[in-house]
C-alpha cells in the first residue's frame, strides 16, 4: 500500500515539473533551440568538409546535448525555489527518494525529447549516414541520457540553491560526466562506422555500470542534500 502511495507521489511530482514547463513554454523550446544552435556552431568549428563532420558528429552531438541540458537541470528546482514550494514538499511524509525519482522522471522526458530534436538536426547538419545498427545507437543514446539526467538532477539539487548556480552546476557536473561522455561518444562513433572492432559492446557495459552505480549512489545521498 505504501509503495503505491509512493508511486502516486512520484507521478505527481513528475507531472508538476513537466506541466510547469509546458505552461512556461519558453522552457523546453528555448533549451531545444539552444541545443541546435550549439550544434550549428560546432558545425562551423569543424566543417564544412563532410567527412570531417561525420567523424566529429558524435562528439558534437553529445556536447550540444550536454550544454543545453545543463540549463534544464537547474530549472527543475528553480520553480520550487521561487515559490517556496520545496520546503512544503519536504513536509510531506515519505522518503526523499520520491522527490528525487519524480524529478528524474520529469528531467528524463525533458532531456529525452531535447535529444531527439538535437539528434535529428545533427543527422542533417553533420551528414550522418544512418547505420544498420541504428537500434543499438538508440540504446546508447538512452543509456547516455540516463547518466546525464541522474547526475544532472542530483548536482542541480545543490547548485540551484547556492550562489553562482550557473557556473557551479557545470563545474561540479562535467568532471563527473567524463566516463559517460567518453563511453557514449566512443560507442556512437563505433556504431556509426559499422563497429568493425566490436568495441561498442564494451562501452555499453561501462555506461550501464556507470548508470547503475550512480543511480544507487545519488538515491542514497539525495536525502543529505535536499533536506539541509
Amino acid at each position, binding site marked *: 500500500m505504501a509503495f503505491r502511495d509512493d508511486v502516486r507521489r512520484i507521478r505527481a511530482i513528475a507531472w508538476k515539473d513537466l506541466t510547469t514547463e509546458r505552461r512556461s513554454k519558453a522552457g523546453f523550446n528555448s533549451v531545444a533551440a539552444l541545443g541546435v544552435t550549439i550544434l550549428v556552431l560546432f558545425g562551423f568549428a569543424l566543417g564544412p568538409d563532410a567527412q570531417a563532420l561525420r567523424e566529429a558528429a558524435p562528439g558534437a552531438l553529445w556536447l550540444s546535448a550536454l550544454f543545453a541540458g545543463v540549463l534544464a537541470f537547474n530549472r527543475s528546482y528553480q520553480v520550487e525555489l521561487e515559490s517556496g514550494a520545496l520546503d512544503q514538499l519536504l513536509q510531506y511524509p515519505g522518503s526523499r527518494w520520491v522527490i528525487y525519482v519524480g524529478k528524474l522522471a520529469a528531467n528524463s522526458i525533458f532531456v529525452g525529447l531535447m535529444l531527439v530534436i538535437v539528434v535529428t538536426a545533427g543527422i542533417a547538419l553533420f551528414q550522418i549516414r544512418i547505420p544498420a545498427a541504428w537500434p543499438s545507437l538508440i540504446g546508447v543514446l538512452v543509456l547516455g541520457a540516463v547518466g546525464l539526467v541522474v547526475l544532472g538532477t542530483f*548536482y542541480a539539487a*545543490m547548485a540551484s540553491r547556492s550562489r553562482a548556480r550557473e557556473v557551479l552546476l557545470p563545474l561540479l557536473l562535467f*568532471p563527473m560526466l*567524463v*566516463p559517460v561522455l567518453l563511453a557514449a561518444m566512443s560507442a556512437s562513433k563505433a556504431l556509426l562506422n559499422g563497429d568493425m572492432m566490436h*568495441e561498442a559492446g564494451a562501452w555499453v557495459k561501462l555506461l550501464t555500470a556507470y548508470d547503475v*552505480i550512480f543511480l544507487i549512489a545519488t538515491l542514497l545521498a539525495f536525502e543529505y542534500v535536499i533536506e539541509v
Partner: protein
Amino acid sequence: MTAVAHPIDVPRSGRWTLFGVVAFAVLIFTQVFAFVTSPPDANMGQLEKIMYVHVPAAWIMFVCFVIVMVYSLRFLWKGREEDDLLAAAAAEVGATFNGLTLVLGMLWGKPAWGVWWAWDARLTSTLVLFLVFVGYLALRAFVDDPQRRGQWSAAVGILGAINVPIVWMSVTWWRTLHQTPSSAQTMAPAYLAGLWTNAVAFLLIMIYFIRRRYEAACLIRAAEHAAQATALGGLE
C-alpha cells in the same frame, strides 16, 4: 539549522610548530640527498631527478583524496563538524599537490616524450581529479551555511571519489582501442631509496599542512559559534 548545538574543540597548536620545523628539515635533507646521490639514467639523463618531486607529490595527492573520502563519510555518519573541516583541509592540500603533480608531469613529459600533454589514463585521471577537487572547493566557497556546506561537500567528495576509478578505466579503454602507446614510467631499483625517503618527507609536510589548515578552520568556526552564543543571550 543553528550551529550552537555542538561546540568545536579548538586544536592546540603548541607542538605542531616543532613538527613543522622537523618536517621541513627532513624534506630539505631528502631532496638534497636524492638530487646529489642519484646517478644519471641511461635513457633520460638527469631528467629522472624530477621523479623525486613528481611521484611523491602524486602519492600525497592520493592520500589527501582518501582522507577527504573517509572524513566525508564520517561526517555524514556522525555529524561532527570537525570531520567536515578536516575533509576540507585535506581537499585544499590535495588540490595543491594535485596541481603540482600535473605541472611536474608536464615538465617531465616535454623532454621525455616531446609533448607537454598526452591523453593517457594516468595524466587524464589526474586532471579530472583536479577538476573534482576544484569543484569541491568552489562549492564550499559558494555555500555559507555550515551544516549545508558540510553535507553537500561530503556528497560531492564521495561521489567524486567513486568516479575517479571509473574515469581511469574509461580513459584506459579509450587509449587501447585507438592503439596509441601508453607512457611507461618505470623506475630502476637504484632510485627507490631516494623515492621512498622523499615520499616520507612529503607525507610529513602534508600532515603539517592539513593540521594547520584544519586548525585555522576550527578557530574560525569556534569564533562563529561563540559569536552566535553571545548573540543568543550569553549561553556561554
